[in-house]
């Protein structure tokens, strides 16, 4: 049986044209998915945990679901300042119940935004975000810039569905241009190798071949620019690749702002980039008819953090005096945008929401998960659909594994290995339905393709049971 129109539950692209072949309640093939999506659909069940576990005398031992839920509820109800973390790999429906639970236990609830595009949200709250849907970009953008982002590895179908390699209504894909460059590049390497064979000392004796500078296509054709600290796979496709010094993004963005205002910069280079290259890019930006700047963790995780994003948004704002230019963060987890959206509906704030005062309070840097853990403020934690033991820095993990910890996850992760209670759950988007938000804030349905193993509930159902149990303990 083929299930079509499946939304992929991996990255923020949420590709909704995936086809899954199911036989006897097993996924046997998947079409249209990228390597990451295919890996999830095909391998999700291989290292599955289907048993609720409770830690007794230092060991995780099997328990009933009711026991595990009761223990988790007790931990949360007894805690003075519990942390509820994760949420970006589950459905909006589960996140809604999670927020209710956080309010009930007076804890702090944070999603993975905190360690990906948290700084982007801080910057957006300062200066706004001129954005659009990905469909607009596919059909109209004639200049696409990826800054500190490598979609080839992190969002493999982003280029094919929405930007450089997509056939839009008014803009063509750059496939042919890319292929002809590949042939030229391969011929250049062959020439270099042959020259090495006839040179004393071989190719090592020759000066290294210079990087090819590609001639820009005509103004009406779509162009791709990549700004990064290393020549990523995405950069291989680019018409212009600008290699920045690590931590130099802020300077480059501000230099571009000055250049598009026709100001002279009395320097030869900015953060390792020759000024002529920046002038070329500034010209390209001003002369675009519909420009798009996508930015990734290269900006949010580098020195400057939210100030880098603020500079990027201000650059786009300045560009709108001359042309149409928009900007969008490359969101990682498939429902991290949904986590922000639902949290904002319910509390007014997109992440790092603290209910300890009885009302929602938001102060990233104080109420964000890494800070709460590093300071040792939290005295219990519930982790759902995430693995902070693998993704948080050392001090935060040291404190996380010490405290009473409950994990809701379909697999045994490093966080689950250090938990006191592990509750197995179904994979949303494969074994459970739900709603997700694509990176451009378009809501999409997640389908149930196969039945979960017997007795395995969805995140939403488990959270609802924990919430009921907490209310019972509190006598409500």
């Amino acid at each position, binding site marked *: 049986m083929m299930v079509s129109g499946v939304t992929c539950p991996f990255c923020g692209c949420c590709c909704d044209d995936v086809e899954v072949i199911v036989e006897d309640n097993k996924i046997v093939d998947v079409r249209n998915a990228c390597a990451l999506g295919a*890996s999830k659909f095909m391998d999700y069940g291989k290292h599955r945990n289907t048993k609720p576990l409770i830690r007794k005398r230092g060991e995780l031992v099997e328990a009933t679901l009711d026991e595990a839920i009761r223990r988790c509820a007790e931990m949360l109800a007894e805690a003075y300042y519990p942390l509820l973390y994760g949420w970006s790999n589950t459905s909006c429906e589960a996140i809604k119940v999670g927020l209710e639970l956080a309010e009930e236990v007076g804890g702090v609830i944070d999603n993975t935004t905190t360690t990906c595009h948290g700084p982007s949200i801080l910057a957006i709250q300062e200066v706004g975000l001129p954005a659009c849907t990905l469909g607009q970009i596919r059909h109209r953008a004639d200049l696409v810039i990826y800054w500190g982002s490598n979609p080839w590895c992190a969002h493999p179908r982003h280029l094919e569905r929405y930007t450089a390699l997509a056939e839009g209504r008014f803009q063509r894909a750059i496939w042919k241009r890319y292929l002809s460059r590949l042939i030229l590049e391969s011929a250049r390497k062959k020439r270099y190798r042959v020259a090495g064979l006839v040179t004393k000392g071989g190719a090592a004796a020759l000066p290294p071949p210079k990087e090819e500078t590609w001639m820009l296509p005509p103004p009406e054709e779509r162009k791709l620019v990549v700004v990064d600290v290393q020549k990523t796979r995405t950069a291989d496709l680019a018409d212009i690749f600008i290699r920045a010094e*690590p931590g130099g993004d802020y300077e480059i963005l501000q230099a571009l702002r000055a250049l598009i205002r026709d100001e002279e910069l009395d320097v030869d280079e900015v953060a390792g980039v020759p000024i002529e290259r920046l002038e070329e890019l500034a010209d390209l930006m001003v002369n675009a008819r519909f420009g798009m700047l996508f930015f990734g963790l290269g900006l949010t995780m580098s020195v400057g953090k939210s100030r880098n994003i603020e500079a990027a948004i201000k650059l786009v704002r300045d560009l709108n005096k001359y042309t149409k230019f928009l900007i969008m963060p490359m969101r990682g987890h498939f429902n991290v945008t949904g986590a922000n959206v639902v949290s904002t509906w319910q509390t007014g704030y997109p992440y790092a929401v603290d209910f300890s005062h009885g009302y929602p309070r938001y102060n990233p840097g104080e109420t964000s998960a890494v800070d709460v853990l590093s300071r040792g403020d939290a005295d219990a934690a519930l982790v759902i659909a995430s693995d902070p033991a693998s993704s948080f820095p050392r001090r935060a993990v040291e404190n996380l594994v010490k405290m009473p910890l409950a994990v809701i996850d379909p697999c045994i992760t490093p966080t689950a290995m250090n938990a006191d209670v592990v509750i197995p759950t179904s994979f949303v988007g494969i074994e459970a339905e739900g709603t997700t938000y694509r990176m451009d804030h378009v809501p999409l349905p997640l389908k149930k393709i196969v039945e979960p193993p017997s007795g395995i509930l969805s995140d939403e159902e488990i959270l609802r049971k924990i919430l009921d149990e907490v209310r019972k303990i509190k006598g409500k």
Partner: protein
Amino acid sequence: MDFILITGRTIDQGKFKEHAKLSKEYEESVAVCEMHAEDMKRLSVEEGGNVKVSTDIGSIVVKAKRSKRIRRPGVVFIPFGPWVNAILSSETDGTGMPHLKGFKVRIEPTCEPVQGLREMFLKIYGGKKS
């Protein structure tokens, strides 16, 4: 020798984190340090040789891997994962976001083995007490 460390995503890291974090494939995809060929020469490290990467927070042992994508000596890359996180600072400068790209590390060749995930967690974070 001092280097600038960048952390980030790779396609294998993405694939194997979904597959299973306790698998050998995941370890092989993230417990690696991608380096410029010149840097490997300066450190006298062969492809697949072990290197110790240290910060003020701690140190880890990972495999050295030659990268054609790093065009500038002095910059190294380790994919996101529990190995590299064990040497990162939790300081967020009031933003909630730790500093995960572009910081200074010391790298030296070593004979010490790359620790598996369970082993590394036990050594760094200690066993969980009930």
